């Protein structure tokens, strides 16, 4: 039995999504059999969002039933799984914004329902930003007074609802987590365009966290995945309240040219940068750059890249590593795909341990 059924007659956009993202879906909480069945039954890209939403609804229903019986822990796990499935229904579905937003609303709703039920629980936090708000989920480790906190930056198609596994690895090591949707990301994609100058939203987030008495705002780390693997170092170039940075598969300098990228990713970039066409989108991409500023990074940084990454070559991490001023761990993982989701055991715990050390948590 192949774990990844592949029908030759499939819509190439579906095929592309399957071949790029299977390990990510499973590593981030989609049951393998769900992945196989939903993608096998999906011939056209146009069916993607509804197929995943239907599967998500099954998990949501299990959550509703468990909660009605008072089984909070089970309900929290079901709602989290439902949120991940709804999220993957919408993640690149920019071809039908109404449908995308409906699935997105369900993803946010399910994760919000899970937050008070999961261990440790989470809290939805609004961050004032440019006259409106960005939203994030704050979770604090059990039994730690005023823990350090890791600000978690999403990418082009990830959102805070996908982050449970990453969060748990920081939490179990004594660090609080704040996964937030920045401009152009998750809940921030309707009011705001993608923001290459990511130090701006990160400043707003840290200003907000500094006002809290339940976390140690003198020990703030930042973490970013995929495009967030650019955003996090970018913010670190300017935001000196950041004490350490982890970047996963981020670019050093985006190109104005989208050649070689999957068409659905290119479209997502165009829509989320609120560009009318690819030429405009290319101009936004060009502003995503660490050239000339990487040397401003003086805090410790940990860079992860895969040698088989088809979206961001690992040479981007090598270039950044060569230019930063502070201590740097460069982990180029042989055979790793984008975000090394196929070999996640080579970096997820390791980066969590490293971050805990940088932020002064006890080694465990």
């Amino acid at each position: 039995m192949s774990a990844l059924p592949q029908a030759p007659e499939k819509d190439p956009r579906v095929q592309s999504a399957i071949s790029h993202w299977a390990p990510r879906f499973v590593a981030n909480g989609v049951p393998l059999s769900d992945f196989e069945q939903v993608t096998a039954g999906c011939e056209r890209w146009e069916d993607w969002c509804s197929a995943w939403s239907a599967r998500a609804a099954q998990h949501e229903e299990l959550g509703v039933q468990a909660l009605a019986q008072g089984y909070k822990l089970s309900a929290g796990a079901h709602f989290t799984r439902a949120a991940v499935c709804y999220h993957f229904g919408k993640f690149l579905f920019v071809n039908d914004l109404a449908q995308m937003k409906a699935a997105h609303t369900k993803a946010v709703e399910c994760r919000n329902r899970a937050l008070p039920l999961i261990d440790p629980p989470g809290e939805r936090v609004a961050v004032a930003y440019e006259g409106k708000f960005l939203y994030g989920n704050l979770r604090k480790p059990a039994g730690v007074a005023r823990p350090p906190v890791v600000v978690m930056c999403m990418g082009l198609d990830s959102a805070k609802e996908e982050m449970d596994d990453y969060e748990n690895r920081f939490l179990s090591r004594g660090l609080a987590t704040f996964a937030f949707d920045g401009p152009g990301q998750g809940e921030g994609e309707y009011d705001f365009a993608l923001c290459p100058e990511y130090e701006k939203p990160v400043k707003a987030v840290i200003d907000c966290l500094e006002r809290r008495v339940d976390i140690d705002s003198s020990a703030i780390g930042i973490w970013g995945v995929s495009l967030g693997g650019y955003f996090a170092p970018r913010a670190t170039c300017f935001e000196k309240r950041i004490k350490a940075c982890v970047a996963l598969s981020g670019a050093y300098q985006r190109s104005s040219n989208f050649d070689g990228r999957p068409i659905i990713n290119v479209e997502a970039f165009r829509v989320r940068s609120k560009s009318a066409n690819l030429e405009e989108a290319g101009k936004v991409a060009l502003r995503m750059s660490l050239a000339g500023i990487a040397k401003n990074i003086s805090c410790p940084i940990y860079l992860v890249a895969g040698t088989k990454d088809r979206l961001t070559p690992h040479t981007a991490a090598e270039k950044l590593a060569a230019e930063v001023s502070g201590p740097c761990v460069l982990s180029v993982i042989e055979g790793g795909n984008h975000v090394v989701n196929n070999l996640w055991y080579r970096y997820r715990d390791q980066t969590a341990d490293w971050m805990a050390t940088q932020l002064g948590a006890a080694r465990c």
Partner: protein
Amino acid sequence: MSKDARVASANAHWAPRFISNGVLLADFEDVTSGMQRWEDWCSAWSARAAVHEKLGRDTLAAGYKLTASEHLTRAAVYYHFAKFLFVHDIPQMREAHMKAVECRQLALPHQRPPAVRVEIPYEGKCLAGFLRLPVFSSQTAAKPPLLIMVPGLDSAKEELEAYELPFLARGMATLMVDGPGQGEAEYDFPIRGDYEVPVKAMVDWAMGRKDIDTTRIGLWGVSLGGYYAPRAAAFEKRLKACIGLAGPYDFSANWDKLPELTREAFRVRSHCKTQEEAKRHASTLTLKDGIAKQIECPLLIVTGKQDRLIPWQDAQRMVDEASGPTELLLVEDGNHIANNRPYRWRSRSADWMAEQLGLPRQ
């Protein structure tokens, strides 16, 4: 390029189980896609296990104990699957098995919650097990209830952490034991149908513990253990509740339809010389002739309606005949143990057992 039928059979039956019990998807694909002959199974999985073992040992040396425990637990699962049905080459099987035991042993003190290895006196020797206490039992005066967990024909205590964690999270202590014919005990002790005998030894041992509430003991079993647990519950009246996952009602009735690898593993682990002898031995694994009726404690049976090894009707028969309160959780689109639908029963069965053992709803 045609695969060995035994490799194809193992893949077809077990992919969802491997993944849901801790094997990475990319590892499963890499290891099985490159394999043509069943003879390569154990060495291929052992080689992949060694990758995780090295990560674990290196991380442990660096002082990152939690991460090390995760790598080493994973390594143990991989070594376990290397050996799980590899009974045609016992020296190779045993070597992988000992690596599984060693890796998990290294992980035990660093897991959350930590585990300790215990040895339960049994017929002049010992049965090996892991005892884990739930995290918050140290924070309250009340002693936790205990769930005894037993594997099946080809599972062993090193594989089963994914099953164990939901019970620990709900406040039960867990005791995972390799019984006769299982895991570490398979060399000294053959499979026995009257599994109430080893379960009596486990409960007797538990009675001597000061850190658990011995008036609240439940029993859980998976696959062939889905027979062992109800069978023991029919005789061992100190058990307060029982969960059986996809076990046979009468194993000899299923015999002729079982995969070759499974029958052969049963023969070897029953210490039988021939398949005929093994089939006769299988007939001693039974709830027939009024045995099921003797089950009086609450009983939850879980099975998948698409199970190709043990038909779901066996589960139905158990709940129909048991005398106490019963519940049948039949997963319509579930395979053996419904491991393709873990979210339909894993947390729910843990909630059920917590309730039976008097724990508050979490």
